[in-house]
């Protein structure tokens, strides 16, 4: 194995280990978090970033590794995958401010949506809308971009240094956000610390991006979510 490969595979492994550690933290803290109806903004952001690390890093690791290899060949640092991953996480962390704003605006009602009549309808609506988005051309375009590490690299002429890596990671994060925001919205209304929902959505995201039938799966999931939304509204 070449030194470049060994290093970048090591970084890929480190991203997966980080995800595993995040899952451990989430599981260990789930009971305490589930009971907390009001949390501070730093605590919320801590949960959000931990959740992102757990759910998203496995799905995005192949692209980070591929980027690291090419950036290194272009004269970038040996750890080019790290600023890339940091840029990716930064963009998603910023995106986390949206559910936070909704949380504050609704005075925490989203945390108990599934148990209130209004929350019941909101859950149905978000599920149906997220399902429809799964079927949209924009979702398809973003997912195709996320599924093509080489395509992303060949169409983005970022500087191979740390700033370039950060920008490349942010740019990939934008495609990933376009791909997954609706799924995260579902997670938000079901409760941010719902481990079963997190697990289901993490597997779905991983498969959409990396399984050979990921594009088809995203549409099947979309139909399922629309039907689920209707079911929740009716029952």
């Amino acid at each position, binding site marked *: 194995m070449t030194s*470049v*490969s060994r290093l970048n595979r090591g970084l890929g492994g480190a991203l997966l280990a980080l995800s595993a550690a995040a899952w451990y933290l989430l599981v260990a803290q789930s009971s305490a978090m589930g009971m907390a109806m009001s949390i501070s903004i730093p605590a919320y952001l801590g949960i959000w970033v931990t959740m992102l690390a757990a759910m998203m890093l496995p799905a995005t690791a192949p692209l980070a590794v591929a980027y690291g290899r*090419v950036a290194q060949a272009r004269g970038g640092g040996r750890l080019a995958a790290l600023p890339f991953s940091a840029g990716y996480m930064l963009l998603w962390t910023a995106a986390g401010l949206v559910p936070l704003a909704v949380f504050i605006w609704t005075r925490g009602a989203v945390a108990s949506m599934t148990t209130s009549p209004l929350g019941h309808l909101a859950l149905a609506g978000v599920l149906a809308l997220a399902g429809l988005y799964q079927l949209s051309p924009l979702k398809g375009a973003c997912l195709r971009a996320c599924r093509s590490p*080489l395509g992303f690299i060949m169409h983005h002429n970022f500087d191979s240094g740390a700033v370039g890596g950060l920008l490349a990671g942010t740019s990939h994060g934008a495609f990933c956000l376009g791909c997954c925001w609706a799924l995260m919205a579902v997670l938000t209304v079901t409760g941010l610390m719902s481990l079963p929902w997190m697990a289901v959505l993490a597997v779905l995201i991983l498969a959409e991006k990396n399984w050979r039938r990921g594009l088809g799966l995203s549409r099947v999931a979309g139909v399922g979510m629309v039907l689920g939304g209707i079911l929740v509204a009716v029952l």
Partner: protein
Amino acid sequence: MTEWRLTGRYLEACNCEAICPCRRVGGRDGGRAQFQLCQFALAWTVDTGHFGEVDMAGLLAVMAGYWDEDESGVPWRVRLYVDARADAPRQAALADILLGRAGGTPARNYTAAIKEVYGVRPARIEVIHERGRQGIRVDDAVTVVARAPFMSEASVSCGIPGHDHPGEELVHEMLEVDDDPLTFEFRGRCGFAASFDYTSESSHLRQGAEH
């Protein structure tokens, strides 16, 4: 033998400097590889095609390997990656065609040189043929990124897609293969992009059909 035809786009990278000495340039035949070892990655994107009744359009395959100019008979040793999106019969058909077991154009152009196949492996493959942005990626095993076309006035052709399919010489930013026992990485070496049209028919029959 099953009747088949594959047409599409071909992309390769090797460790020679551009223009690769194996190419036919301006009608003049190529010769030995520049270095003792020729180490390469070859990629095919099937745009249209069939193998018997099976539709092969849209499938991808990559072959990585090497030969030693000083070894008797200059045998190729290769590993073939076939499109993981394809079902088993299509993957088998890709392997049979590109390794020469199904005869036809590949058997005439290059497969007679293949003496050892390390394996045929289904893999996630990406091949980009966009001019100036060509690239190949096979899981963690193969990465090829083109830098630019190598400008040449003369017509350049390669024996693998066939000299009846002249193409464009390239300079690659990187060629990296990492799949034991094939392990090599190069910067700034050559590549080639062309179309291909492989068929099960013998050249004699094709010429007869064309005339």
